[in-house]
């Protein structure tokens, strides 16, 4: 397999080491190497690599640049809250901190280019310099000129520099409408089942044989491959359940080679893991504790989403109920629900066909504060004074994200809200205050 990674200008030994560190990515690495050419040769100005999460993009780049000792700067775009940080990190890794300190406050792109050129004239590149940008999709949200400029940075700074963009999104979604320099596209395909098996088998436990661990991975993939192909997630699951897998061995019941018995032992366990751990319902630490406990006790441990009950003050509950009604009932039906003597409302007129049953499918609608309070006063059973604490409860419901404010924060006059809780949640709340909410919902009439 190392044959693929033969390339002039790099030591054979190093290439071999590189190949060992990236199983199942030799083709892509070889392609990259041939794009990069020999260290002293000029390389293509920009390369765009895309592929799903955990398909080895960053890993391959990291290993290549590190093992071949090429000058490079790796920048994560999440971390660059401002372009200044980006520029600084690039200059820092190429020219040292003196260069980075030359940047003015809130530097522009031209500042960066100027300093880069100035530094580069002092220490011109003997080898191609690489700038690796992880999570490059975030570059789309920055200044419009940044991405096009980076793509042809080689021209701008007149230096042997190559930009490598790593992204989970295809290039088509990047292309600015003003047009730009087209980078070379390189796709990292998803790992196949066999490849996953090969990669996962590499993190074997030091006290067990490689074959044993590999057979474990085989069982694991048999259960999880149909629902999850994310390498990282699978690795996490493998680490979590391995101790359980080894249990019969430690007890001396089974031999290492008896895969069938081991499989019988672990299979129900993995199924259970699929329900909770995969969604991170319980943390890995708790999962391990749970495994150490006896089966009967483990029922007590519940996932995060099992805890949905929220305790609220009495009036907050009614405010939330009122908000729910205001969000899901059309305003014109309020009269029918909340007025004692609402007069005659024609049934055909009242029940418009297309409106029926659709409110819950359409999601919550915004409503003004007045309407919320009007409904609140009519649903709450005793007389409530309009005190300051009623109003402050509304805003605390907003901070608890049970309501959302639709209008802008600055709008003091007639603010608008939306109810952000689910039907189940509001039903549970209304049950605690003996309020039959379904009777008041237009959709269920």
């Amino acid at each position, binding site marked *: 397999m190392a044959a693929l990674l033969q390339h002039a200008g790099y030591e054979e030994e190093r290439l071999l080491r590189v190949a060992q560190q990236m199983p199942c990515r030799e083709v892509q690495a070889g392609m990259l190497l041939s794009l990069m050419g020999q260290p002293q040769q000029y390389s293509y100005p920009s390369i765009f690599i895309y592929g799903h999460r955990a398909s080895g993009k960053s890993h391959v780049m990291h290993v290549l640049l590190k093992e071949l000792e090429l000058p490079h700067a790796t920048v*994560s775009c999440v971390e660059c*809250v401002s372009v200044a940080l980006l520029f600084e990190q690039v200059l820092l890794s190429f020219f040292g901190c003196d260069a980075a300190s030359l940047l003015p406050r809130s530097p522009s792109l031209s500042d960066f280019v100027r300093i880069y050129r100035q530094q580069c004239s002092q220490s011109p590149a003997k080898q191609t310099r690489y700038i690796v940008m992880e999570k490059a999709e975030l570059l789309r949200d920055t200044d419009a000129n940044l991405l096009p400029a980076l793509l042809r940075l080689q021209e701008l700074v007149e230096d042997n520099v190559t930009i490598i963009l790593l992204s989970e999104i295809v290039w088509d979604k990047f292309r600015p409408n003003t047009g730009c320099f087209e980078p070379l596209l390189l796709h990292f395909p998803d790992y196949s089942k066999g490849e996953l098996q090969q990669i996962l088998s590499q993190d074997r436990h030091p006290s067990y044989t490689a074959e044993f661990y590999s057979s474990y991975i085989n069982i694991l993939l048999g259960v999880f491959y149909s629902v999850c192909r994310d390498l990282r997630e699978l690795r996490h699951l493998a680490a979590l359940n391995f101790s359980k897998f080894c249990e019969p061995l430690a007890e001396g019941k089974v031999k290492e080679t008896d895969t069938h018995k081991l499989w019988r032992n672990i299979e129900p366990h993995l199924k259970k893991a699929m329900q909770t751990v995969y969604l991170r319902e319980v*943390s890995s630490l708790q999962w391990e504790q749970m495994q150490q406990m006896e089966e009967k006790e483990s029922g007590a441990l519940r996932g995060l989403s099992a*805890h949905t009950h929220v*305790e609220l003050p009495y009036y*907050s509950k009614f405010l939330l109920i009122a908000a729910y009604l205001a969000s899901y009932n059309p305003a014109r039906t309020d009269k029918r629900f909340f007025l004692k003597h609402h007069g005659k409302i024609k049934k055909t007129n009242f029940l418009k066909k297309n409106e029926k049953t659709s409110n819950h499918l359409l999601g919550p609608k915004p409503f003004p504060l007045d309407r919320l309070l009007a409904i609140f006063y009519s649903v709450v059973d005793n007389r409530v*004074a309009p*005190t300051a*604490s009623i109003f402050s409860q509304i805003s605390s419901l907003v901070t608890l994200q049970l309501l959302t404010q639709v209008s802008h924060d600055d709008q003091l006059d007639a603010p608008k809200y939306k109810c952000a809780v689910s039907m189940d949640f509001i039903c549970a709340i209304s049950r605690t205050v003996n309020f039959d909410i379904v009777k008041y919902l237009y959709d269920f009439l």
Partner: protein
Amino acid sequence: MTTTSVSKGCFVFKPSAKKKKKTLSLDNSEIRFKLCQDLWHKIRADTEVLQDELNRKILDSLLDFTRKCSSTRQHSDWASQMRASEIPTAALVLGVNVPDHDMTFQSLSELLQQSVTPHVASVQAKECGALKHLMKRVLERLMDTVVTVDDEEEEETEQTSTQLHKSVHCSLSTLCDWYNAKTMKSKTGTPGKKRSSPVRDDPQQPPVVIIFKDLEAFNPKVLQDFILICSRYVERLPLMFIFGIATSPSTIQHMLPHSVSSLLCIELFQSLSCTQHLATVIDKLILTPQFPFKLNGKVMQVLMSIFLYHDFSVRNFIKGVQLALLEHFHSQPLSVLCCKKKEALLNVMQLSHHDLESIRHLLSFRRYVEKQEPQEQLNLFRDDTHLKEVCQKLIKDLRKYHKNYYPVLRCLHTLTSSLPRYPLGKQVRELHLICLEKNVWENEDYQTAMKLLKMLAKDELIASLQRCVEILQPVKSKKMKKALVELEELLTLLEMNESRRAKKLSPFEVLRNEALEFIDGLVKSHLSPPESQTLNEVCYYSSSATVRRHLNATPRTSIQAALSSPYYYLQSLKTEDGTVSNAAPDICIAYKLHLECGRLINLYDWLEAYATVVSAAEGNNPDSDNVRKVEEVKHARFIQAVSELEFLGFIKSTKQKTDHVARLTWGGC
């Protein structure tokens, strides 16, 4: 003279007796202030201790969690290596009583700093609108320096601060460098080791804890990005998060997508519910004879309803108690007697003639006088020294009443709280409220409770009575000791007798009735409402309206009160008949006039009316010529008043009719 046994707690007494004697005769406000302060300090200290105790369990488990996390990180076994990329996270569910959280976080970060790590930073959502602000706050709080954010708005502050501090760049790699420098520095204490071992193996690597106080309020995008960045550094920096959650843990899943939450290793910690918290506070603060200051039924009701209906905040409840305390000592001159027994008896002797007169006017005292012999009545009204002696006795009686009241209350509660459908309430505070209102034994629910108790099976009855015995045991009061002896006798008899089904009453049933009659007797003699006690006004604060007005403000009512009766706020406008004088502020006049209108108000008519009233106020004859001249100024004043009314929400502009505005309130004068 009366130095009989008093329970000797650790009370702070700093009586400067001589000074007091002087001031007392003239005005006892100073001494009242001091009493109030002492009492409040005691209450506050006690509640703080209580809250620490209540939080201890959850804080301890959190501390354990942090310790465990930082120790597994340094382990090199296979499983923890595989998990090394996860950031340990504690999800701390605290309930919706957000005002109470501050104290919990305060003690949490203090404890963390004392015992686990010096590197603790807590952030709040409102100061972290954008990622760079969050980053800046975290860095500042951990490193204790000024952090640069490349932001134009902060240019000026930046320039001044650069000269003062060595400012640093706002990124986690800066933090990493700083952390390494810190841990290196602490390692140089053992210089031989310095170079030999890599940093990771160093056992002295305290975790860096970041506390997000209010997770729900954070912008999800900011949080996600921050976690993504942190996970890039987790191998170099032992980070740890604590999420403060007010609603439910499923919020985490709503806020963070799987790609982000998979970077965390979340463990859940559930704190005590606020109702339980309040129950403990009431138990230790209200239902005890330890504090002489008491709340009457109505005030209790107000405080409870604010808690249950509005905010669930224990802190606010205690603030309410504080307000009642201040008001009581401020408004009741006789509150000088609301203190420890010894001091109270001393203060009785120092009462002035004026104070004694006000005692004579007390409702409870007059009721007491009416029951006395005519000669004694006369003495009480005439003779000050005699009154003082009687007062001393009455104060002692009041103390005895409290000493007996609470144990009996608890006994009754233990008996009734296990009954089906809780006729006398689930919580002891509910029973307390019933007892404060009126004679509990006249209550219908009490009768049903007694009936139910008479049907209790043997083991249940014995278990409840056993608990009553436990309640009565520590009480140091003669009557209670006597009751305890009797109860224990009954209990042994009950245990000895079998319960059999027979037509005739079995000996067990006879005894059961006897036991319950005994309890009934206790209730009747000790659970009478405090209003029936003489001199209860000294200890009981009763102005529920004041408490309600202060704690549960009604802005709308206040505005209307200010507009319709400005003399309520501006004393100079006081008129005899209570109507608005002509000299009232413009807005009041405009408001008064608008009340006379219907739904739509003609602006010109309104202006005319306004001008007439104002000219009359200035003493001008409305028919004279110079009325025309000042019209412009008046016009401007009128327009201002109208727009103020619009701002306050009484009127709004309308397109229904030209030159008209619409009223937004109903009713008139």
